[in-house]
């Protein structure tokens, strides 16, 4: 599979050469993350290649939120890094058999993963982003989950992250106001 490297300054690169034209061509390329890649690098990429902004209806608003965040030290102390992993879930016994495949962005601290929905973007931007494994859940058994190495293409990577970020609507807002 063709590979594209996502650099921490937001550029897409192939053979260490930054790509300037036609970024859409790389949507089906396997993603490799540069050392020091953070969520901020992700937004730098969207700013550098504005055409990616059309891939998800929430991306323009996420970008707006990103622009209003501080330039550094946007980290959540409770989270070590962010991980994008895939789940393949086999369901439907008893009932209609179904197979679902979906990406999830979560926080990881040590060996534990955690939900990041409660963190506003200004606590996540400078968190390192890593590609995780594929988790295979069979008939709802979330204890004995099988794990495999996997790859993400650029489209899945962008979509997976933005889907998660569309849930980050700063729930503390009303508490802070009181």
């Amino acid at each position: 599979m063709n590979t594209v490297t996502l650099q921490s300054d937001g550029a897409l690169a192939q053979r260490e050469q930054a790509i300037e034209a036609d970024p859409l061509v790389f949507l089906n390329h396997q993603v490799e993350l540069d050392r020091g890649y953070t969520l901020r690098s992700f937004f730098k990429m969207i700013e550098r290649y504005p055409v990616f902004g059309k891939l998800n209806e929430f991306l323009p608003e996420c970008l707006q939120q990103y622009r209003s965040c501080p330039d550094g030290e946007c980290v959540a102390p409770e989270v070590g890094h962010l991980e994008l992993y895939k789940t393949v879930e086999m369901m439907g016994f008893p009932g209609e058999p179904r197979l679902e495949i979906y990406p999830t962005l979560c926080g990881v601290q040590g060996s534990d993963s955690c939900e990041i929905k409660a963190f506003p973007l200004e606590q996540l931007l400078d968190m390192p982003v890593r590609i995780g494994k594929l988790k295979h859940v069979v008939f709802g058994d979330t204890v004995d989950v099988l794990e495999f190495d996997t790859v993400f293409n650029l489209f899945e990577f962008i979509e997976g992250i933005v889907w998660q970020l569309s849930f980050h609507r700063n729930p503390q807002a009303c508490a802070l106001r009181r």
Partner: protein
Amino acid sequence: MFTKLLFATTASPVCDNAAKVAFDLEMKWEAKLIIFHVLGVPGRGFNLQVTDVRTGEREDISQDYADWVKEELRNTYGTLLEDSNAEIVTAIGDPAREVLRIARKEDVDMILMGAHTREEDIGATRHRAIAGSTMRKVAKAARCPVVIVNRPCTTCWRLFSNIVVGTDFSKASTSAFLWAYKLAREVGATLHIFHAVDIAAQGFAQPSGQNAIEQKIKESRRRIEQTYLTKMKGYGQFSVEVWEGIPYVEILKFARDRQADLIVMAHHAREVDPEHAELGSTVEQVVLRAACPVASVNHPDKVADLV
């Protein structure tokens, strides 16, 4: 405004946020709170077993079992029940039908629920029904407002300062507006009346569409003034906003911008026969992502005094 409230719960952690709002409302409005739990779905024919809604296990139904579940509910909401006079009621049957049945029988002013039956991975919500099927059925058929609490809500209702009502000018939207207005007037909140011109549905993506969009925005504004502002009888704390875009994205953006404490919407998006209406995708998407509770209002029953 609220004298009787129904909190429909599975007693699982997904209902915890809704529980806090329900108990808070009971105290603030000195209302009667009914905590309602459906024990299970009965088996076919004559038998004494039910399928537990939460575990899927078959259970022998008896007074002992019902008492045990009530005790479990008391333990689950132990701290919240300390200062409460809530009544715990259980029933056997299809959860949505039983919730609607008790809501009608008790003539409650509002139903409070969590969005899901069980915790879902965020990624999985894309594939599965975004809103739990019970919530969907209740929101569709309830005569009273249904408030869905999907996130922690830290504001008590008496202190609400911003209520956003999203309208598509349907009949149900008028009920939603009237209910939101009644609540805003009661608690002294600012009512933000919002409409999103759906550019995807109207084919405004064409290059020549900009003028048409602006025309539509002006038209919608005029319609809000004629339809809603005339009903407000001198209440001055309001704003009117019309944006263009994808309705659920725009409502969420607007609610965030105004730091909304509550979003009020009609259950189904357009003039649809309620018998055939599924929960509008706009409401579903808003419920899922909103930082504040979302009220689905479908019928004029609880705003009859304003009509």
